[in-house]
């Protein structure tokens, strides 16, 4: 586990050994996580990995079977949601359909007994902050998805929570709006200094927004750390495959203490690090798709491969290769698209330091 950001003596959110079962299924299998003041953390994973259950445990909608959750050093495990010092932006927003935008946004202050005139002022300020001035008298049904999203954000932020939880907040928006909101959310978070914890299954979204990514798998944390670290040094096959395009290669230790994988005529070689050594030791190596580059046959360790597919995504092309039965992916800039065609025989190479060997326990 990565340490919380520097300077934070006490973590804002302290999750210890939180477990939750639904029948026979362990939604959370003892999760521990510390989140510091002002951090922007993404809980990332496929559906069913436990990220939403963890978020709902933090918010108080799900009571964990065991474990402890503390906010600001205060144990909130037994507190109902309305007594926790946090707010949530819900998936699909959960705006109150029978209230105006102003009544929605002013709901939190009204519960705290803030005077009417004060609420009106705060609502105006909150709506201005999310760029919705003048929308106060409308109904949620009269708003677009993006506008509803902003109202949900204003409704949560008006309470100035220490911690804001976001449950797939951008999932219902179209791609363009989504990209725009990602940046806006990040700016807003930096400006307000509020700790954001958001759940997503979109690795790109997590990489764009979060300071720290917590990858979850099967109710446990697979890896937590800064986005760049998770991308460059994933700790397992799962993490490597979930974030970005990864080429995973089975490596076997040679008598000379080096890991090798043979592809066609060439060999991938990596120094064997760590304690475990010995002939026959097997490890998994990861090569990011962008680490591969086209080469000529005379480049040392160049691998011969056949192009099987060229996927053009506009700015980039992803070239799928078959190297003597091993599938590889190579990412190139879009202007290289003309250089590849399915069925073509090419050579690819990479620099040895691009190969990341997964830790021993990796499955």
């Amino acid at each position, binding site marked *: 586990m990565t340490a919380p950001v520097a300077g934070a003596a006490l973590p804002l959110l302290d999750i210890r050994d939180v477990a939750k079962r639904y029948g026979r299924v362990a939604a959370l299998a003892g999760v521990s996580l510390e989140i510091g003041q002002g951090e922007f953390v993404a809980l990332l994973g496929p559906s069913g990995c436990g990220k939403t259950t963890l978020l709902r445990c933090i*918010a*108080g*909608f799900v009571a964990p079977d065991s474990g402890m959750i503390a906010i600001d050093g205060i144990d909130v495990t037994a507190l*109902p*949601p*309305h007594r926790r010092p*946090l*707010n*949530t932006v*819900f998936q*699909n927003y*959960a*705006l*109150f*359909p*029978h209230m105006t935008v102003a009544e929605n946004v002013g*709901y*939190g202050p009204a*519960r*705290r007994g803030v005077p009417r005139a004060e609420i009106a002022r705060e609502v105006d300020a909150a709506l201005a902050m999310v760029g919705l001035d003048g929308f106060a008298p409308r*109904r949620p049904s009269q708003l677009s998805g993006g506008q509803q999203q902003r109202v949900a954000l204003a*409704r*949560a932020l008006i*309470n100035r929570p220490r911690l804001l939880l976001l449950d797939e907040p951008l999932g219902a928006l179209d791609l363009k709006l989504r990209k725009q909101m990602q940046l806006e959310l990040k700016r807003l978070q930096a400006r307000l200094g509020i700790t954001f914890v958001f759940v997503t299954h979109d690795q790109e979204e997590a990489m764009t927004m979060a300071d720290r990514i917590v990858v979850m798998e099967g109710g446990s944390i697979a890896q937590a750390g800064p986005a760049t670290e998770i991308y460059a040094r994933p700790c397992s096959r799962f993490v490597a495959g979930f974030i970005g395009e990864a080429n995973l290669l089975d490596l076997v230790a040679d008598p000379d203490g080096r890991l090798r994988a043979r592809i066609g005529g060439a060999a991938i070689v990596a120094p064997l690090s760590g304690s475990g050594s010995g002939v026959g030791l097997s490890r998994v190596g990861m090569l990011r798709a962008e680490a591969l580059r086209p080469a000529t046959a005379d480049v040392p360790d160049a691998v011969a491969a056949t192009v099987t597919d060229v996927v053009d995504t506009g700015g980039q092309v992803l070239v799928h290769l078959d190297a003597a039965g091993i599938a590889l992916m190579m990412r190139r800039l879009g202007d290289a698209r003309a250089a590849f065609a399915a069925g073509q025989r090419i050579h690819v190479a990479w620099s040895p330091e691009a190969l990341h060997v997964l830790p021993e326990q990796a499955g």
Partner: protein
Amino acid sequence: MTRLPAFLGALRRDMPWPLLAAPLLFFAAFFAFPLAVVLVASVTAADGGGLTLAHYARVLLDAYHWDILWLTLRIAFVTTAIAMMLGYPLAYYLVRVVEARWLRRACVVLLVIPLFTSNIVRSFGWMVLLGRVGIVNETLQGAGLIERPIRFLGSETGIVIGLVYILLPFVVLTTGNAIAAIDRRLEEAASDLGAGPAQRFRTIVWPLSLPGLLSGAVIVFTLAVSAYVTPALLSSGRVTVFSMLIYQQYASVFDFHYGGALSVVLLVATLLLLWAAAAIDPTRRRT
């Protein structure tokens, strides 16, 4: 005038006539036509002559009719109010408190089964229960709560009890549907924003279920105003409601003209009240 062809064109485009044909025919044959017959009869003279408002004058200028109209509406109001007060908690309980699905189903079946039984049978049942030596009076006397039996039968109270029992399911079903349709995440959001259980009910569940409660109330009110069998049996002939007056004219006196006028007066009075209720409906969209 230029808009009429456009309107007809739109009608032809947007109305699926083959789909509507059957209900329209049914509606015309069994509702519009009989209603038209009643309307025509109410404004024609008894001796087969021309148009006249004499029947309406006879109805509206007689204080007796106003008394009965007031009594009928009062019974319907009280019945509706009690049905709402009993029905809402019951609906909430069924939808939100009962967790086991089989138990909820069983409760709904229990609630609906009486609707399959004849009104007459059920009203006779109440006569047995509410009589001078019926179960209710004997229980109350046995418990020492009353000295003399209460006269339920032949009183407004008896009629209200019978009507509430028969009409309660309508409130429970409409309100239950409305409560079940409320997205639970709205309450989670309210909770997240600091609302405790009572505040969540007051600000979320209650306003969002109110339309269901009100539509149930409208059904109960209209059925209570026009109820015949239950008041006729439970009144023991001592209390007369408007529908009994109409029945007498049609079935005993055979005065279709006077009876028609009575029917139209009751219909108009009911419609006026529903219209007034809709005008002050708190759930109406403010735009």
